[in-house]
């Protein structure tokens, strides 16, 4: 029971991300407002009272209007954040082959599963930072807090991926959620972002409370918050209290992953938050939440009795998955706002992911299901960040011109910006699950796992709803390529270096994962060894 360097090494990605956030926050202190350089100091506009006296201006003279002072150049921030994210990605990948160890007295684990989760989270953060760069610059909204909060939340997600103690899980969950609440409230032009953030906050806190209640009941039944102890207690015969705890824990995370019927917040929040944040939320929050769900269900309640028995959680997850797939896809169909459509589609994808979770309950094909889940999460992350990256570019045009988000503004995008149109189409095709994209391979692995776990009806339902999903995904493609331009909007005025990089990265990943899934599958296989018995 003493300080151990391996403990710190185990949480290296989280530490790197936190340090990055603190670095960005501190760097803000040293920024100074830049005065118009053309006029020089003598002709410049004094801002402080002392300078005002120096320049012999009468106190009433309104020289110092805030708009005359150029805000400091904050463009470095996105790149710094991206660099730290890349560092975190490197750290988690570098440790991938190391043996799995328990760290911090068993309150967390450093294993392949955690490292893959951390890698996906850091990758999502990297891409999101690049997407956010141009978006925030165009809206003149770059602040150090934005990237700091993103880094903080990613650090919470990395911790969530490796937490094996209900207390650590709860606190890391709050670290992630709190930062994401603030990010979704970041742009407050108009009422919608405020409403979104408020809904997210209230419902998210509610979900945390439910999770906490479940954790308290688990503690009451086993006198420990460690997942291993819960598993041990289950082997000695579960109690009613423990079943109630499992149900509450699942419900708490059902909120976070946006499973029906706990999905109400998703459309408003995804719609109201800035598009780069939405992409980050859809990709990374989902990864972390599913990772924790798997950790709790397999690490704590992985016993066949707890999973498949009369009170087992498999039945609960199957129902959640089925409902989520059906409702998510059905509600996405009538949406005309692309952002809202993507929000409902994210609910639908949560349903497919829950199919993988349900397939994990069985003892035999567990590896396939976990590997499939991780592969799905990574591919969905790459796709959805790309999709929201394109939305971000369109949205900031709209935000600056004051128009609403509607499919009609996408009409004829291929004429105005063929590269963007091609990227968007690729992401839509991947989300719909059409080969040769990542989305297809992901769905394939998940449904295959479901079939071998004897969840054939669920797999069939998944395929059917995917077919339904084709309609609304391909409608975007139709608008982009086949509809005539209604508004002769000029091509985006600025160069999209960072966002272009991010979109190219996403597109490459999407195609690569679709064509060569083996390379990623082996990484995922590395991760699942943790949960094999």
């Amino acid at each position: 029971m003493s300080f151990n360097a391996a403990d710190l090494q185990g949480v290296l990605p989280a530490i790197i991300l936190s340090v990055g956030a603190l670095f960005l926050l501190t760097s803000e202190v040293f920024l100074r407002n830049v005065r118009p350089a053309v006029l020089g100091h003598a002709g410049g506009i004094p801002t402080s009272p002392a300078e005002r006296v120096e320049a012999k201006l009468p106190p009433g003279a309104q020289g110092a209007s805030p708009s005359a002072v150029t805000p400091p150049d904050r463009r470095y921030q996105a790149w710094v954040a991206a660099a730290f994210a890349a560092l975190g990605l490197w750290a988690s990948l570098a440790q991938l082959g190391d043996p799995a160890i328990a760290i911090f007295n068993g309150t967390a684990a450093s294993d392949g599963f955690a490292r893959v989760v951390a890698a996906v989270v850091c990758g999502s953060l990297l891409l999101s930072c690049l997407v956010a760069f141009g978006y925030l610059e165009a809206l003149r909204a770059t602040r150090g807090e934005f990237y700091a909060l993103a880094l903080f939340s990613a650090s919470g997600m990395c911790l969530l991926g490796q937490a094996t103690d209900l207390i650590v899980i709860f606190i890391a969950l709050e670290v992630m959620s709190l930062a994401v609440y603030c990010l979704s409230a970041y742009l407050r032009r108009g009422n919608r972002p405020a409403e979104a953030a408020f809904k997210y906050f209230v419902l998210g806190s509610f979900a945390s409370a439910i999770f906490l209640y479940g954790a308290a009941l688990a503690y009451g039944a086993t006198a420990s918050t460690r997942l291993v102890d819960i598993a041990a207690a289950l082997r000695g015969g579960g109690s009613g209290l423990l079943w109630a705890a499992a149900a509450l824990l699942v419900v708490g995370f059902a909120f976070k992953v946006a499973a029906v019927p706990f999905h109400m917040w998703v459309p408003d929040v995804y719609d109201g938050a800035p598009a780069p944040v939405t992409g980050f939320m859809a990709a990374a929050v989902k990864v972390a939440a599913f990772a924790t769900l798997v950790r709790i269900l397999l690490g704590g309640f992985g016993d066949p009795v707890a999973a498949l028995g009369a009170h087992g959680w498999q039945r609960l997850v199957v129902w959640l998955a089925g409902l989520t797939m059906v409702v998510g896809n059905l509600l996405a169909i009538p949406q005309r706002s692309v952002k809202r459509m993507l929000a409902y589609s994210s609910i639908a994808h949560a349903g497919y992911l829950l199919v993988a979770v349900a397939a994990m309950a069985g003892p035999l094909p567990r590896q396939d299901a976990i590997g499939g889940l991780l592969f799905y999460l990574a591919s969905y992350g790459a796709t959805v960040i790309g999709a929201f990256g394109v939305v971000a570019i369109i949205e900031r045009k709209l935000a600056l011109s004051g128009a609403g988000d509607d499919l009609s503004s996408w009409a004829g995008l291929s004429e105005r910006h063929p590269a963007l149109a091609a990227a968007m189409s690729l992401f839509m095709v991947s989300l719909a699950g059409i080969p040769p994209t990542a989305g297809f391979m992901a769905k394939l692995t998940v449904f295959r796992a479901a079939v071998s776990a004897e969840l054939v009806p669920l797999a069939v339902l998944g395929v059917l709803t995917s077919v339904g999903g084709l309609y609304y995904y391909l409608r975007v493609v139709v608008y982009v390529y086949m509809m005539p331009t209604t508004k002769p909007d000029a091509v985006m005025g600025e160069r999209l270096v960072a966002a272009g990089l991010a979109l190219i990265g996403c597109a490459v990943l999407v195609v690569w994962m679709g064509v060569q899934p083996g390379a990623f599958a082996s990484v995922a296989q590395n991760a699942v060894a943790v949960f094999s018995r």
Partner: protein
Amino acid sequence: MTESVFFWIFAVLTVLLAAQVVLRRNPVHAAVSLVGAFFFLSGIYLLLAAQLIAILQVMVYAGAVMVLFVFVIMLLNLKEEEMGHERLTAWKIIGGASIVVTTGLIAYLALGNAYPTGLLRDMARTQPGFGSVKGVGQALYIASVLPFEVTSLLLTIAVVGAVVVAKGKI
């Protein structure tokens, strides 16, 4: 014997005051009820031999946190008409019923078949230094050092986030 008498006094008062927090329409009354609930809850902690936690409960919650709550409520200072009138809606009946059912179910599960009686209390009795400053310190800084450190991360985020949200329009 005395212990269980005190337990029932504290428990009943805690639950009653906690219910008042939700049922009262006047926010100040609700906040003051919450102070009372915290206070009696700390009494229950004392009975569980966790003196330090009991005192921290009073110091942090009843003292600091609630004062800030009441402070904000007083600044808002809602008028009677702004609070609206009590109305009995179908949702309230459904909500009330589901609360009763859920609580009953959990109580039944907890007290009925499977609750390992006296598990936590035995832990308090058998572990030397349980609930003392030293015991809590060791639990906090050795056994649970990771959650403790992550909590500091959480608080940093809360401060940064509060500034972001409270700042002018970005």
